[in-house]
């Protein structure tokens, strides 16, 4: 079924239409939440929160941008709110980071995905702005225009921030021996 039709049915509170619609976005939402929040549990909670927000406020989507852009924007805002909250909590971030690394380390040993592990680790080391732009551009493959709409920044800022984010990521990867200087 066409996305526009599904959106229309969702506005009329058709849960089945929502099930179909959200199925295409769940992975994207979760992926973004995971890299922003650096934690599986938080990413799951945030993803669910985002999906519910989408369902509840779908009538606010006017079709001025792509639906995907709108979804990413909600995801970004939700995650940023959670990050702000988390920053107020003493040393919570560190505990989560430790658990994530431990979990990922075990996973990477079992599955022998060392490159992926190094990449993830390096991304997680970036600050929120850099991490966000790397996720949207290099992982999700969105256009500069879409990223500009999601982050509510100028297209030129997207490019410059992406440049700096990639450099920071490259430095991390060099440190780990994944890339050469």
């Amino acid at each position, binding site marked *: 079924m066409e996305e526009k039709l599904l959106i229309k049915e969702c506005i009329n509170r058709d849960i089945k239409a929502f099930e179909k619609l959200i199925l295409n976005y769940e992975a994207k939402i979760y*992926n973004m939440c995971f890299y922003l929040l650096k934690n599986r549990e938080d990413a799951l909670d945030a993803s669910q929160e985002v999906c519910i927000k989408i369902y509840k406020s779908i009538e606010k989507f006017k079709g001025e941008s792509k639906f995907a852009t709108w979804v990413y924007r909600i995801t970004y805002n939700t995650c940023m709110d959670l990050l702000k909250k988390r920053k107020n909590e003493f040393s919570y971030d560190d505990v989560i980071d430790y658990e994530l690394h431990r979990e990922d380390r075990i996973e990477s040993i079992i599955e022998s995905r060392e490159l992926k592990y190094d990449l993830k680790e390096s991304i997680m080391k970036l600050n929120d702005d850099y991490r966000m732009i790397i996720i949207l551009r290099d992982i999700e493959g969105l256009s500069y225009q879409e990223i500009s709409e999601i982050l509510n920044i100028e297209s030129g800022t997207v490019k410059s921030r992406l440049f700096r984010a990639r450099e920071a990521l490259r430095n991390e990867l060099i440190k780990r021996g994944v890339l050469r200087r």
Partner: protein
Amino acid sequence: MKYEEYVEKLEELDEDFEAGMLSQIKEEPPIEFHRDLIKVVKSNERKGYLYRYRKHALVVVAGLALFFALKGVSSFNYFSSKGELNTGTEKKQSVKKNKEVIKNDKFDYAVSDGKFIVNYEIFIKKDDEAVIKFINEKAIKVDKFRGIYSMDRYHYKKLEEILKKEGIEIKPIFNFEEDNVVIKININ
């Protein structure tokens, strides 16, 4: 560096950096995520429905409250008119109460039918013209068929004296709070 050069450099980097590497590290949600999400959405929807239902119910209740508030005066009147029975009961109760008080304290006779409190019952002879005349002149007929009269304290005292002269004793007024005395006159 000029802006154009800068953008060019960015574009170069863009091509050479990715190499499809980062797109390989996408994270997938667990399989149960979708099922759990839909459960939550359905549950929220039900709660929302209940909330809306509750909201509507509150509106209806508020409407009814307003209706009764506006109709309050007439309703009160309606109940009052209906409640005459209650008022009657109250009257009866007070009469009953009076009856008890009367019987116990100062009076011989209480009520006949809830209308009058008869303080004294007097027996006179039909040929006792002086007494009959006095009563006809000084007492007020309340219920002529039943011989109930009302008389003020002063004249009651006078009646008492007249009857005493004829050898008939009636009970004196004592602690009588009312100005008038209700008497039942029996003519033999």
